[in-house]
């Protein structure tokens, strides 16, 4: 069986800047895999190309062995690839429950006509959307906030609600863009627990993150980027004592 996600010879330029160059890595199913690197290493660019928010200039991205390179974001999502954003992007005027219900979009089918005429089969689907959204909220301990307008939540709650929305998609692969940014130590610890639980639910995670202790704690595999190219990959213990990695993070004096 091929890896869940394969990145092959990926390239992306922004004008004169070669943001991602000949990048290759795999994401094996069932793992938590991290993509790390100093600022400007190209992590977010890679992330956005996988999510379909940005098209690559060259190379391929394969999901379950099939090419998804350059597909639109909604089509990538429909294949079971969920993502969160660096700054949370909940729908602020909708309730938490409604946000998570939108997360069921790819797992339901009522279109415009069914929406207008509300036939009995769509009642069942609508109940199912609601039930499953509530279940996701309960799993993340957000059930009490179901009726709250998302824009009024605290920062940490918003991040959790965005997780709930992504998980409601029942994704196979979850892409997380700096999920610990802006969280305090307690919240980061809770996040680490949550991520390992998500892995137990059978969801593969690819995470872009700055918080090194979080990355080292939870990752099964780490890919280190530097100036758009892969510098190293390996298990956290290997990455942690790699002199090259230490050098790019801390400067030459520490090598």
């Amino acid at each position, binding site marked *: 069986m091929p890896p869940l996600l394969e990145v092959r010879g990926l390239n992306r330029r922004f004008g004169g800047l070669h943001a991602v160059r000949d990048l290759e890595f795999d994401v094996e199913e069932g793992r938590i895999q991290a993509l790390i690197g100093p600022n400007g290493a190209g992590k977010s660019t890679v992330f956005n190309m996988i999510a379909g928010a940005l098209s690559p200039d060259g190379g391929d991205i394969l999901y379950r062995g099939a090419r998804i390179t350059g597909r639109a974001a909604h089509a990538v999502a429909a294949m079971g690839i969920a*993502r969160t954003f660096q700054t949370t992007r909940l729908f602020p005027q*909708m*309730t938490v*429950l409604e946000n998570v219900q939108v997360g069921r*979009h790819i797992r339901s089918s009522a279109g415009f006509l069914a929406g207008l005429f509300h036939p009995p089969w769509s*009642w069942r689907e609508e109940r199912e959307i609601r039930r499953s959204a509530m279940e996701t909220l309960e799993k993340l301990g957000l059930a009490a906030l179901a009726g709250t307008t998302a824009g009024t939540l605290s920062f940490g709650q918003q991040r959790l609600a965005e997780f709930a929305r992504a998980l409601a998609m029942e994704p196979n692969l979850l892409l997380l863009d700096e999920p610990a940014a802006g969280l305090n130590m307690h919240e980061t610890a809770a996040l680490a627990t949550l991520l390992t639980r998500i892995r137990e639910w059978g969801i593969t995670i690819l995470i872009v993150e700055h918080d090194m202790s979080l990355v080292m704690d939870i990752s099964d595999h780490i890919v280190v980027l530097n100036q758009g190219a892969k510098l190293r990959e390996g298990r956290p213990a290997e990455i942690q004592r790699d002199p090259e990695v230490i050098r790019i993070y801390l400067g030459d004096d520490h090598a």
Partner: protein
Amino acid sequence: MEGRRYIPIVLLLLAAVGVQLTLSACDAAYYLTQLTMSLYYAIVAVGLSLLMGYAGQVSLGHAGFFAIGGYTAAVLATRNLAVEPGAMARALGAMGLLLQREDLYGQTIVYLSPWVSLAAAILLTSAVACVIGVPVIRLKGHYLAMATLGFGLIVYYTVLGAPGLGEADGFSDVPGFRLAGPLEVNGRSAFRVQNFYIACVLAAGVMALGGNLVRSRMGRALRAVHEGEEAAQSLGIHVARAKFGVFLLSALIAAVAGFFLTHYNGGIGPSEATALKSVRYLAIVAVGGMANLWGTLIMGVGLNFLSLRGAFGSFDDAVFGVILIAVMVLAPEGVFRRLPWPFRRKGGDDAAAA
């Protein structure tokens, strides 16, 4: 349980009965004429609310869609097919799709059944909506507003300039639209009461369908698109398709309202297609609370009724401009935001359906 969402619709129809009985009892049934017209205009605004309030897409050309519906009705109902009937006309006659009437001078006029022209209006509107919508709708920002503004102006100057479309005079002598049995969309006073009910039922139907849509999976998707396109996309929503779908729906509602009102008024003129009319619909949606179908309906009926009664005098168009500005400055969330159920859009999905 599922039926509870239709309670406000039933209340609307009961209110209509109350209004009609009161007005008839007070010997003031002539008000029903303006109420009927106001209902058709309000239906356009309700359709626009789906597009603007829920999906966040601005249209400045809804008077154009209204006019497409109205002019289709007028052109096809006034063309005399008895004069030099072509093969097409003979084929339609063989299928029983032609009707006959006598005009003012006793001349027999053979014309297309309004049911056929309604289908033609729907097809034409869909085609036009595709031409405007498909290239523009995938762009972010206010391109749809600009494209529809341009479209509205094109429609206005076309109906004003084209000889086949009546130029500045527009059309008169548009016959009634026989729906079934004695039911007929017709502005003559003998039909006044039943036409008030026809308009009410049409409005109730649009409210029921619109209310269903906004509570559905697609309705949530539209609001999601409004509040964050990128996030909506990341959840698998085909943003361009969702936007186009609601644009088409909204355009069709406007065209059907225009079609009915033209048969009711017995004619249509270029003033129905002006940009000022489009702004008027926009102002009604804004004052109704944007994403608030009931607020839009009530404001649409109320303000159009006042306008048709001449309450705004020669400041008619200016009043709607002032309303639009006032709402934007003083109450951007609309006037109906604080009213209790059933007028307010509930925050928590639909508790009634749970």
